[in-house]
């Protein structure tokens, strides 16, 4: 009996070999995972305190790569191509999984890792035409061109790492997914830039917003709720004002639903869930101060791109030196053969997203609604370009097939049985030079830098700020901005049957929003509308832009004529909120009015008392900001009830600037909450009711304020998730200083300052920076998220950019060598 049991146990034990080799479901092959020689335990290895000599086949001369104490590789090469090979090598060494995850996501090939669960994400990428666009760019690139040389050099470096990598050096994530690293191709870089365009410039909701809102409240109200220009005027291109301008207009009452729009709205795909009007898309800050307004008489620049905060970080810090050619320090995106944001011995630069409307939809007439092959333009049928997309699974099996169709404008698609819409989008024709960042890094002054970027950078449009050692500061919103026919509106769906409705080209350079050494002595962009409405230019609608951070930084800049680098660093996490400054008085006034009407309550008194004493600063210990934010959500919900669809979903939310404008019209019909049929509310009734409801909801959710549950550091804590969403590889509940609409909006979702940098440009260049993560992509490494504490505290590291290896205290020295020459 005992033997029988033992035999059964042995058979079961041996059966362990199956999951050991093949894995079961999501569980990776156990043997390969647990293998202490070649498996996941290899992630424990740390060869930082070492000297290495590595051979890279395509290298033309030795390259020294010295890592400093912050694990930043300083690359000293004799040619630009060798420097880029080395860059590919060092980034792959630290971030290989991230690189592959990102190009797979960008090219719609995640199913090869994850199977059908990734199919929707892959389909979205491919149906938007992004991988197809990258392939076309790749084909169009001359094999002898400098761009091709650089892309291939980068791929050589990445593949040199992959080829010499021992299985024990595979990033942990490959083990968990049960997949092998793939080799790098030059086209992957193009996929990454296309993905960046999707992240920063995919705004198909503009057209949908207008149609859906018009379907509910008519065209006139829709136009007023979502105006072409924001009513808070503080543009990127200085307009000569010494203070912001407010151009609020009275909102017309809701009108009759637009029947045509109602039909069209029913044909549009469902938009993503709407929020409470607080901008949650990617945002950024940058500003520069001329020598005349700095304490040291040197130009200062601050860069602060707010992007998706992830682990590993989006950015990787690096220094490239090619004597006489290139000396650039900053951050690169793993997969990009260049420093994207940083500084040289002459200039420093940073970007914010312009957020312009660079995507238009066209309603097309097709020959066969179920299987179109041709589309109608100017009375003639044109052939659709058809492309079949195969989605492969983990073992090479087909898990999905798509037939994509393209008009001359771009991809053609529809949702369900809806209308066929084609899309024209600058990101699909980016005209992006793959060497634009390298070219710009050779600039000797601010103007040269911007002119260089203007030549090679088409999309996604960026507000590029730059300062130089000669004391110049400048900014230019650079990218392709469509010239639309005068009779069309960028925010409306166009008739695709008329070629006259097509774009007529792109804005000429002199029309770009820009400023060089303005009299005010500073420049700032924070995703606000780039041009003063008086310029009468269409770049998007009100909700595409965000005025609050721009108001704040301009207020700070105007008030200080002796700015120091320390001030710049402090401002990056300034907890003050112009949005709170604008709205809190309205709440307090409303509570007073309602009390005077004899409708006071203990809750209203308590809420009012809390907002009265609030200093409107989002600091971790604050216990009042949470009440204000909850009250704003309540106001938004109660005010814009007219925009609720039959399903109960709010189809769109006007901007908080529009809401502020409505505050000046206390009896507007928009205030009335139509869901309360027995009463007609005015502004003060809605605001005070919102305040009471917010207070009650907070007590229900967090307990009484005295219990300590309302602390902003707890409620507004941010999180930085791993790319695969694995909690153990992530950092959660990070208490930060800042909140919605502040200069550090980290607490909103998982977005936030992804790379903070301050640069002083004088006889020598001094710089400081950090990002929320670490140089290593290995979750088990001490360098994986070692920078988060510094980042959370709003402090920056000193950035060390030596001209050569002298004086560089390296923790690791790597010499990359060309192949041995065999003796004859």
């Amino acid at each position, binding site marked *: 009996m005992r033997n029988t049991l033992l035999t059964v146990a042995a058979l079961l*034990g041996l059966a362990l070999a199956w999951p050991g080799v093949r894995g079961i479901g999501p569980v990776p092959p156990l043997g390969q995972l*647990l293998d202490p*020689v070649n498996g996941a335990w290899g*992630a424990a*290895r740390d060869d930082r305190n070492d000297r290495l000599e590595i051979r890279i086949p395509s290298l033309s001369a030795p390259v020294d790569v010295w890592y400093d104490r912050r694990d930043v590789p300083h690359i000293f090469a004799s040619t630009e191509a060798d420097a880029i090979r080395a860059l590919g090598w060092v980034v792959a060494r630290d971030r290989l999984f991230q690189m592959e995850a990102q190009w797979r996501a960008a090219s719609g090939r995640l199913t090869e890792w994850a199977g059908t669960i990734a199919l929707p994400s892959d389909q979205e990428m491919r149906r938007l035409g992004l991988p197809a666009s990258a392939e076309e760019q790749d084909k169009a690139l001359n094999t002898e061109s400098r761009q091709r040389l650089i892309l291939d050099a980068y791929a050589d470096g990445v593949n040199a790492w992959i080829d010499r990598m021992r299985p024990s050096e595979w990033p942990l994530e490959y083990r968990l997914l049960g997949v092998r690293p793939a080799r790098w191709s030059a086209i992957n870089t193009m996929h990454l830039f296309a993905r960046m365009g999707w992240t920063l410039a995919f705004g198909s909701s503009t057209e949908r917003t207008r149609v859906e809102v018009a379907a509910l409240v008519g065209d006139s109200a829709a136009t007023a709720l979502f105006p072409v220009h924001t009513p808070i005027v503080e543009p990127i291109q200085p307009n000569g004002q010494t203070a912001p301008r407010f151009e609020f207009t009275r909102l017309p009452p809701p009108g009759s639903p637009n029947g045509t729009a109602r039909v069209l709205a029913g044909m549009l795909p469902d938009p993503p869930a709407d929020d409470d009007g607080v901008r949650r898309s990617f945002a950024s800050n940058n500003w520069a101060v001329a020598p005349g307004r700095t304490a040291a008489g040197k130009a200062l620049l601050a860069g602060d791109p707010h992007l998706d905060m992830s682990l590993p970080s989006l950015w990787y810090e690096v220094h490239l030196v090619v004597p006489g050619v290139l000396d650039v320090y900053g951050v690169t995106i793993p997969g990009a053969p260049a420093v994207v944001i940083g500084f040289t011995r002459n200039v420093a630069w940073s970007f914010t997203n312009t957020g312009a409307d660079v995507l238009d939809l066209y309603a097309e007439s097709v020959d066969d609604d179920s299987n179109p092959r041709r589309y109608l333009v100017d009375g003639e049928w044109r052939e659709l370009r058809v492309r079949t997309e195969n989605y492969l699974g983990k073992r090479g099996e087909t898990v999905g097939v798509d037939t994509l169709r393209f008009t001359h404008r771009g991809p053609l698609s529809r949702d369900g049985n809806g209308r066929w819409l084609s899309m024209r989008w600058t990101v699909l024709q980016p005209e992006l030079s793959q060497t634009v960042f390298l070219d710009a890094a050779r600039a000797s002054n601010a103007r040269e830098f911007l002119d260089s970027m203007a030549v090679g950078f088409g999309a996604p449009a960026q507000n590029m700020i730059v300062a130089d050692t000669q004391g110049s500061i400048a900014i230019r919103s650079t990218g392709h901005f469509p010239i639309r026919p005068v009779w069309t509106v960028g925010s409306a769906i166009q008739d695709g049957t008329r070629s006259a409705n097509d774009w007529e080209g792109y804005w000429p350079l002199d029309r770009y929003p820009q400023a060089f050494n303005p009299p005010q002595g500073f420049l700032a962009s924070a995703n606000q509308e780039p041009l003063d409405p008086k310029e009468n230019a269409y770049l998007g609608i009100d909700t595409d832009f965000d005025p609050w951070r721009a108001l704040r930084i301009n207020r700070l800049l105007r008030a200080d004529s002796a700015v120091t680098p320390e001030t710049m660093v402090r401002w990056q996490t300034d907890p003050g909120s112009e949005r709170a400054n604008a709205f809190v008085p309205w709440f307090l006034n409303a509570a007073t009015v309602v009390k005077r009407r004899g409708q006071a309550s203990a809750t209203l008194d308590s809420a009012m008392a809390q907002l009265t004493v609030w200093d409107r600063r989002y600091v971790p210990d604050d216990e009042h900001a949470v009440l204000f934010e909850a009250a704003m959500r309540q106001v938004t919900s109660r005010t814009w009830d007219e925009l609720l669809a039959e399903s109960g979903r709010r189809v769109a939310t006007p901007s908080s600037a529009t809401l502020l404008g409505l505050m000046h019209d206390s009896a507007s019909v928009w205030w009335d909450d139509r869901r309360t049929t027995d009463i007609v509310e005015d502004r003060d009734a809605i605001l005070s009711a919102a305040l009471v409801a917010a207070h009650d909801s907070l007590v229900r959710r967090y307990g009484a304020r005295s219990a300590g549950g309302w602390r902003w550091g707890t409620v507004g804590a941010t999180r930085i998730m791993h790319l695969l969403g694995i909690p153990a590889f992530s950092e959660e509940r990070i208490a930060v200083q800042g909140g919605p609409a502040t200069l550090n909006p980290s607490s909103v979702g998982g977005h936030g300052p992804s790379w903070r940098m301050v640069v002083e440009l004088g006889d020598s260049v001094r710089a400081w920076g950090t990002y929320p993560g670490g140089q290593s992509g290995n979750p088990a490494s001490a360098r994986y998220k070692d920078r988060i504490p510094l980042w959370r505290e709003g402090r920056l590291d000193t950035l060390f950019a030596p001209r050569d290896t002298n004086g560089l205290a390296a923790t690791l020295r790597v010499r990359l060598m060309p192949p041995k020459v065999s003796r004859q």
Partner: protein
Amino acid sequence: MIGILLGVTGILLGTWLGFPTLAPVLVGLAMGVTVPMAARRAALAGVIAWGGVLLAATLRGDNIAGVSRTLGGAMGVPSWLLLIVTLLYPAILAASAAWLASLAASRFSPWSGGHATLSRGLPPT
């Protein structure tokens, strides 16, 4: 003792060559037909082989505890359990293979009466 040492060597070699699952099984099979008390000894060889590699890595300064914590967290298991599973994995495979091999050897042995089995420490059936 020599049998265990050979087992350890075999598992290490096979693992190093990239066969972390096959190596313990083959070593277990081999020990099953050649070594007395094969199952226990094969298990011990598995633990020593993989445990020795982890111990050597720890002594070299590798962050084994960190990986255990991180990977354990990702898989939703305590870090110590991941270490135990790592040690048990080759042990179970090798012991199971050894038991079955020795059992088969006793059944199909050209020698009479299950001599081979008895001589290798298995109880008579």
